[in-house]
């Protein structure tokens, strides 16, 4: 059984039907990539998984436990880490405090894993600076680091490469791969940057107008012409 199992999710904003019977699985040790054009509902899907927006129908289970009624912080405690679109770091907290927020549900004495600073050395230099003063790319790195701080079982990333310089994108790619390969984390990645997505995908899901129109193993992406699907 998959770590994350979302079935037939329907979601509305007011009167607009945004997600239509969307189903999604994520396995430990695998990267599941969600692709789709702007406005098709990718972010909404992730927010539903995180519990930030309520779903109208459908079920979500994590490790076999139903979480669709759980609040976001309960989901976080069950091991879901989230990198939101648009970074959403705490602008008035320092970098260090942002990272500590990532450890919120851990015990007070839990240190910030040193590993994070190896992945994102710039954060170490800027520990005392306020998050809001960082450049866009630095903020994105911080957001990823923050989600990793507590060592989640399921990592949800919404366009993590947005605004990041190429060499760091590569690094992020490596990190994601490495995290997946450790085998104790499932990763759901929403990505517009196709090449990056394809390189990482163990599984892919393509969305269109709130629906899943294609999915399959990552290795078949090229064969199935996913790039074209996204580009219609």
């Amino acid at each position, binding site marked *: 059984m998959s770590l994350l199992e979302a079935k037939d999710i329907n979601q509305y*904003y007011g009167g607009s039907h945004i997600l239509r019977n969307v189903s999604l699985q994520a396995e430990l040790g695998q990267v599941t990539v969600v*692709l*789709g*054009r*702007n*406005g098709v509902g990718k*972010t909404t899907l992730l927010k539903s998984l995180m519990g930030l927006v309520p779903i109208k129908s459908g079920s979500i289970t994590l490790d076999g436990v139903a979480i669709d009624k759980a609040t976001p912080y309960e989901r976080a405690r069950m091991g879901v880490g989230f990198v939101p*679109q*648009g970074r959403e770091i705490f602008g008035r907290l320092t970098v260090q405090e942002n990272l500590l927020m990532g450890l919120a549900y851990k015990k007070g004495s839990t240190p910030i894993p040193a590993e994070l600073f190896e992945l994102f050395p*710039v954060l170490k230099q800027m520990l005392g*600076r306020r998050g809001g*003063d*960082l*450049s*866009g*790319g*630095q903020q*994105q*790195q911080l957001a990823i680091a923050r989600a990793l701080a507590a060592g989640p079982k399921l990592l949800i990333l919404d*366009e993590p490469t*947005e*605004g*990041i*310089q*190429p*060499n*760091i*994108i*590569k*690094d992020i790619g490596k990190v994601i791969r490495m995290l997946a390969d450790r085998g104790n984390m499932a990763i759901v990645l929403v990505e*517009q*940057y*196709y090449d990056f997505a394809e390189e990482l995908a163990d599984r892919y899901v393509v969305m269109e107008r709130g629906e899943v129109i294609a999915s399959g193993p990552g290795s078949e992406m090229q064969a199935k012409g996913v*790039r074209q699907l*996204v*580009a*219609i």
Partner: protein
Amino acid sequence: MTPDLMDAGAQRLQKARGVTATGLTESGGRSAGYGRVHAPGEVDTTHGRILYLEDVHVSFDGFKAINGLSLDIAPGELRCVIGPNGAGKTTMMDIITGKTRPDKGHVFFGSTIDLLRYREAEIAALGIGRKFQKPTVFEQLSVFENLELALATDKRVRHSMVFSLTGEEKDRLGEVLQTIHLLDSAARLAGNLSHGQKQWLEIGMLLMQDPKLLLLDEPVAGMTDEETERTAQLFLSLKGKHSLMVVEHDMSFIRTISEKVTVLCDGSVLAEGTLDEVQADERVIEVYLGR
């Protein structure tokens, strides 16, 4: 943009700005030597530059975000600026648009207008438009109204009170709506758009503004490859009539549109040249592109 619209806009602007732009001559002594009469407020590009930065410095609590930056852009040029996160690209745009005051240095629009003497709105009215790194639109207004507000026209109070769209302007609005794929969302609140749609809307607003110089901070972030491609086409089509400065990290996008690329690093220019040249530059590979 239609040239006649542009001209009309310039004329209106000239009328609107009136005397505000006078008294610029002492600005850094730049124009003094030329002994040439020019219309106040008009961008003087006879010297082949529409934007000119010289030795600009900014620091925040001792941190030098911009450190001796010099750069110029020719009229009609499409300039790409790349550089590591935190290199100072956004800060540079903040300086050009009047949001941040540099500690030191010169920033000229054309060869006569000292931008450091203007406030944000005046700079925008002079013909510099900007798309922010984080999309900012008027969330409580509809897409349509967002564009309408951006429309290049007299932006003084009295005019706004009696303003109504001419047929021509309506058409332009429709065109832009279509260009940005939001025709069907024209009446929706901008706040309800998805991230990518907001990006587009902001580009649309820039188009409506019809500026001489467009500053675009990561315009294709969060767009699909196909949309990126379309944006690239759009920018290429703007080139020539307008000057553009595009900041991006998406190298394939840069490749599509670039003629000249500037690499910023640690607040100053690290390298400049064609994309191939800078991509081959060891330092650029080291700090930015990676191997």
